[in-house]
């Protein structure tokens, strides 16, 4: 589904990613872990098309299409979704209105008919119920005045409504209390499907107690230095990143 080859990316002229290779098949959940500054979030943002992240080398094929040739909205319509580490507050734009416009843009791309207000609300209520999300979120401006936990839940809610093929969660678990974490995890688990893949960028092993990944990658200094099964996450929890970072610097 996603094949990243030798990806180099920079922000503000500083190269952060120095040759990422990553292959995710449909139905899989991959976790990317790594210390601060290792490039985890850069990878997520580069894949989503953030304009401040410049790709200098390498490619990312999504279902065979070159992601880096697409603008952010085309990536979203093709089925790539990124849950933001820091969701943006948009005063004056109502959550429901925004999400309906987004969903209809995605649906139009898929050749589906636009949902009218009634159909949209039915879908939205269904998803909110599934995720245990408070309905008052709908009538508030996007993320404005939301608590940290509400913002992250809103990201998961948007994901559930937009139904992407590839969902990238950029530290969605950071800063969450255990209840909010369970909602996020439940949202991901409920959406796991043979034709959908997840890339979980996380700083803590904790999320992986609730969402069991197929593959765990360790990112250090802009490269993937180790990949393994779910037991790799536990090993990191016990031993920290030091032993891998040392290996990375020897290799560089």
């Amino acid at each position, binding site marked *: 589904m996603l094949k990243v080859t030798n990806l180099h990316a920079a922000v503000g002229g500083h190269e952060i990613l120095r040759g990422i290779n990553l292959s995710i098949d449909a139905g899989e959940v991959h976790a990317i872990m790594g210390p601060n500054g290792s490039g985890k979030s850069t990878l997520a943002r580069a894949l989503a098309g953030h304009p401040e992240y410049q790709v200098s080398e390498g490619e990312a094929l999504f279902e065979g299409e070159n992601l880096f040739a697409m603008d952010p909205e085309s990536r979203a319509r093709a089925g790539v979704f990124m849950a933001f580490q820091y969701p943006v507050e948009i005063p004056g*734009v109502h959550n429901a209105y925004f999400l309906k416009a987004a*969903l209809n843009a995605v649906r139009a791309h898929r050749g589906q008919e636009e949902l009218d207000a009634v159909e949209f609300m039915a879908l939205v209520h269904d998803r909110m119920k599934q995720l245990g999300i408070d309905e008052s979120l709908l009538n508030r401006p996007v993320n404005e005045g939301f608590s940290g936990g509400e913002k992250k839940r809103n990201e998961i809610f948007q994901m559930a409504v937009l139904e992407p093929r590839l969902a990238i969660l950029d530290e969605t678990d950071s800063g969450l209390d255990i209840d909010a974490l369970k909602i996020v995890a439940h949202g991901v688990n409920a959406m796991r499907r043979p034709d959908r893949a997840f890339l979980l960028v996380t700083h803590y092993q904790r999320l992986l107690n609730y969402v069991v990944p197929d593959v765990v990658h360790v990112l250090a200094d802009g490269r993937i230095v180790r990949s393994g099964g779910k037991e790799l996450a536990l090993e990191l929890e016990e031993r920290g990143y030091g032993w891998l970072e040392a290996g990375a610097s020897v290799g560089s």
Partner: protein
Amino acid sequence: MAPALNAYVAEWERAKPLRQHSGANGLASIREEALQEFVSRGFPTTREEEWRFTSVAPIAERMFALPLPSAADISASDIAPLRLPIPPAMELVFVNGRHVPALSRVGTLPEGSRVENLVTALATASDQIEPHLARTASVEQQPFVVLNTAFLDDGAWIQVPAGAILQEPIHLLFLSTGGIDNRPLMSHPRILAILGKNSQASVIETYAGTNGAQYFTNAVTDIVVGDNAILDHYKLQYDSPAAFHVGAIHVRADRSATYRSHSVSLGGALVRNDVVAVMNGEGAECMLNGLYAADARRLVDNHTTIDHAQPHCDSREIYKGILADHARGVFNGKIIVRPDAQKTDAKQTNRALLLSEDAQINTKPQLEIFANDVKCTHGAAVGQLDDEALFYMRSRGLSDASARRMLIHAFAADVLNRLPLEPVRMRVEERLQQQLARSLPAVA
């Protein structure tokens, strides 16, 4: 005399026999004195503080003609999209400044109310009207008001008696067309609205023109809101992008009166709006709610003055502007708090959104406070669209253009949401969207 002024004097003379109201009683001398006053002062220049950022040379240098009495070729279908979307108490339609009864709509008015064209009103109630005309023609007035008085002919007379409540709004629609004999037209409509004690009304002025037509509208609206009366006053300016629009609104709010101004400026090549609201009685309230948008090389200048002359008055002012391409905006918000006006509570906000690097805004709050127990705040902010918000929205599938439109709409929303009549607000939103659709490709 400057050649520009000569042209206006010549047109004034030429139009003498064309005037609908002969100028019996004091009117002829009011016009004559105003013309002399205007000639002695001339058009304002950018050397004057009040006109520093707005050159009216494009108006002064053109030879505008007054329209002939025969109405221009305007049909009901031309008017249809501009009509009030709800049943009006009265809808007076003016073409090139002249009232056209055949296009107007008459609803129901409470007993004793009058809504009619100024020519008719002057014939029957000149004793009530002339004092107002003389007042607004006084020497302290800005030059365009004086010019309006010199050319005074048609307009609207609105009188709401004490205690009358108008359920439906009054709509005054001013439509302008292209010129005659290669001369662009001008009109100088005068609107007088007098609300008696405890009365309540909504008055909507709409200005529009044949698309692309060049003309000059110089409107003056004079309002008295009596004790405890409430007026919602809309000015919707959708003039042709080649038109010149100068408008002055003078308001006197008496004891415990409420005046709410909703000013929307979307059209015109050169637009200057003056609002002067005098809080003339204790406990009066005033809201100035403004939205303007310009693209291309258009200029919109809003000058407002809120004069707190009496104690315990509240004023709330919020103006927002959206400027694209090479457009320019000017905002000057003056708040005067007179020595007697203790317990004044005045709040002013103005914000501008610049959609291109070449768009400009000159903004200036001006507080003149002579009382000591008052609350006055003001804030000005100029900004661009938030790049992070744009990326966030695009990452959910919205196109760049629709994300921008949504953010701009959100910027304007708090002004629009203050428009009490929802069908009117929706029309304004449609107009704004149309304009943004036109100016956004240049932004993206």
